[in-house]
């Protein structure tokens, strides 16, 4: 194949999805395994989103070893596995609204604001309508965000490759870490602590010397801490302990859950769409802008989207319409569009810079790392005239996102309305099962009991971090980026002839370092209001 252009790569990406290995044929039409996996992922995502106590992170953690066992380590495995994870990510944002609207229990943290208007609507006999509004707003926001991702990520990556050399890339990684440490969690100091611990943990048992550093000579530490054990331990097991403790404190608060019966017209009319669309569009812009910055998260987007919508609604609302917080459809629309539009934009820093901005992105990187053949980052978007297989995968990934959105538009709404029953599963029964499932999935992936012990140990660390008000996300991002930061810094140091000030010699690198210090300095001065 010669002289491949941008359009050729886009087309090859689409073909890689639709003409990949065939799962079965439907009416003579071959259905590729990737399309099937995106569908399964989306369904699983909606189910876990609709189940309080579960979420996309748990679903990804448990499914990853199964997916890798099923698909193996060939390049053919990349799109089905990544497509499945994308499906889970998108499904869970939609599903999180179900228990929020029906039972006043957000399925995911970012659906909390949805309870404020969704539950009053459900109590007023408008549950199905509230679910339809939530679904429409969520999928619209998500689709908008994906379009921004598809358009922006390649350009950003090309700019990075063109203008950033090794010192600048090192400085950019430092800036990303300090930004995440500063903006995520209760305070900049705690974010920095979380990030420092993540970096320290990843440097155990690694390095370039013959002796694996910081390993105390122990065989269990000499190969380093498995990334899955650290990430899943801190994020999933730590969260399970925290949730279990809350249940322990409010033991058996299991009064019967009342659900009002639907009354009157439940359909979503064109007039309804016109009424909520200004709120959706504002929130989609807010969510996309926030999502493009690593580490900020959908909870903040939902909060800002809701607050912005509330101000507009107070000015524009017709007398007699419910205000925000009293069952306003606009409140659901503003929240759901904002939190869903974060997901696509969150992948901009991953695909263009290789910097994960949220936990879902961390799992995409874990999957790509485990399978091999695709390293998210600026090098992916090299539009070379000889075939660049990573670029084909990137456009294949965009195609899976579009498929997931189409499925979300068509069947996602009906599915989410059927899943109200899931909220009745008692969390005190579900969470220990999920814990064992998580430990088993860790073992399956690493085939080593020490990985299970590490996962359990990091879960305890995650629990204590939560109790001290320290966000685990900077730890995870530090752990994921630590190796690359060290490698880039080593290369930059060597390339500049051992110049100790290599980070300050180029204006761009110096600017990044200055920004890294400034972002921590200003976040220390300004107390934060929102903890994602």
């Amino acid at each position, binding site marked *: 194949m010669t002289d491949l252009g941008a359009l050729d790569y886009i087309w090859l990406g689409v073909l890689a999805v639709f003409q990949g290995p065939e799962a079965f044929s439907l009416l003579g039409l071959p259905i590729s395994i990737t399309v099937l996996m995106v569908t399964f992922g989306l369904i699983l995502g909606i189910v876990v989103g609709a189940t309080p106590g579960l979420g996309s992170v748990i679903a990804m953690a448990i499914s990853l070893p199964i997916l890798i066992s099923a698909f193996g380590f060939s390049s053919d495995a990349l799109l089905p596995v990544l497509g499945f994870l994308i499906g889970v990510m998108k499904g869970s944002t939609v599903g999180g609204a179900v228990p929020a609207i029906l039972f006043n229990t957000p399925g995911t943290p970012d659906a909390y604001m949805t309870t404020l208007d969704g539950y009053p609507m459900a109590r007023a006999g408008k549950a199905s309508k509230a679910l339809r509004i939530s679904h429409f707003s969520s999928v619209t926001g998500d689709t908008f965000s994906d379009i921004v991702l598809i358009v922006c990520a390649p350009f950003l990556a090309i700019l990075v490759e063109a203008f950033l050399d090794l010192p600048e890339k090192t400085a950019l990684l430092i800036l990303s870490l300090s930004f995440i440490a500063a903006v995520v969690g209760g305070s900049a100091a705690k974010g920095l*602590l979380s990030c420092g611990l993540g970096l320290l943990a990843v440097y155990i048992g690694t390095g370039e010397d013959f002796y694996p550093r910081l390993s105390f000579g122990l065989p269990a530490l000499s190969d380093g801490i498995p990334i899955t054990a650290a990430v899943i331990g801190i994020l999933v097991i730590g969260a399970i302990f925290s949730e279990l403790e809350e249940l322990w404190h409010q033991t058996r608060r299991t009064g019967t859950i009342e659900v009002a019966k639907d009354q009157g017209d439940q359909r979503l009319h064109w007039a309804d769409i016109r009424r909520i669309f200004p709120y959706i569009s504002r929130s989609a812009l807010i969510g996309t802008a926030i999502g493009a910055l690593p580490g900020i998260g959908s909870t903040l987007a939902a909060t800002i989207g809701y607050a912005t919508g509330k101000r507009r609604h107070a000015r524009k609302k017709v007398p007699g319409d419910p205000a925000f917080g009293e069952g306003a459809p606009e409140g659901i629309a503003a929240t759901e569009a904002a939190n869903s539009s974060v997901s696509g934009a969150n992948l901009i820093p991953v695909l263009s810079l290789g910097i994960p901005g949220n936990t879902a992105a961390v799992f995409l990187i874990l999957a790509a790392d485990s399978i091999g053949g695709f390293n998210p980052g600026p090098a992916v978007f090299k539009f070379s005239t000889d075939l660049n297989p990573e670029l084909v995968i990137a456009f294949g990934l965009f195609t899976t996102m579009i498929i997931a959105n189409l499925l979300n538009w068509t069947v996602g709404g009906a599915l989410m309305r059927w899943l109200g029953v899931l909220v009745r599963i008692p969390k005190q029964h579900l969470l220990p099962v999920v814990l064992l*499932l998580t430990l088993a999935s860790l073992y399956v992936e690493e085939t080593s009991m020490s990985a299970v012990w590490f996962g359990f140990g990091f879960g305890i660390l995650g629990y*204590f971090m939560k109790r001290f008000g320290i966000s685990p996300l900077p730890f995870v991002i530090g752990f994921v980026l630590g190796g690359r930061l060290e490698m880039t810094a080593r290369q930059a140091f060597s390339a500049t002839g051992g110049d100790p000030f290599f980070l300050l010699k180029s204006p761009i690198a110096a600017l990044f370092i200055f920004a890294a210090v400034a972002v921590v300095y200003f976040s220390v001065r300004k107390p934060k209001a929102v903890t994602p």
Partner: protein
Amino acid sequence: MRNLTANRALGLACIAFALLVAFVWIPLDTETWLVEPKRGRNIVGDSLAPTLAAAFVLVAGIMLMFHRGGDEEKPSRDNLRFICTMIGIGVVSLLIMRWAGPALAALLAEGGDYRLLRDTAPWKYTGFILGGGTLIFSMIAFVEERLSWRALLIALAAVAGIILLYDVPFDDILLPPNGDV
């Protein structure tokens, strides 16, 4: 100390930990220094990256010492009681998971070597069923503050479900602890 708030205590602990890492652990447990001469050029040694990580923790500790504000979150006595129980349940369950199979094989199987039986039913399930079942049953019982048949049934059903999920469909997957006994 009257003014030792939760944040200051955490800050002090961070500073002490960072200094210990930077001046004791790293120098004693790493082969090369921050920068090492190699073939006439300086290269980055294995100590540099962890030292910078320790510096992050040190700076965080200093910032926490001077932190002002209301977010004085810290674990309570109840929190410690809860997590100690969870640790106890987890450690006992994982030890059962690891050793139940070999112990039963030593007692009941011909030859007594579990490694030869670790891919043979029912031996390969013994550790996972006993350890996993203990984990789920004990956690449910602790959170509900009562022992119940329902918790036992859930534990057994969940363990069976996980075996069906991981072990039955895949020949190359081994349940814990069969991959590294």
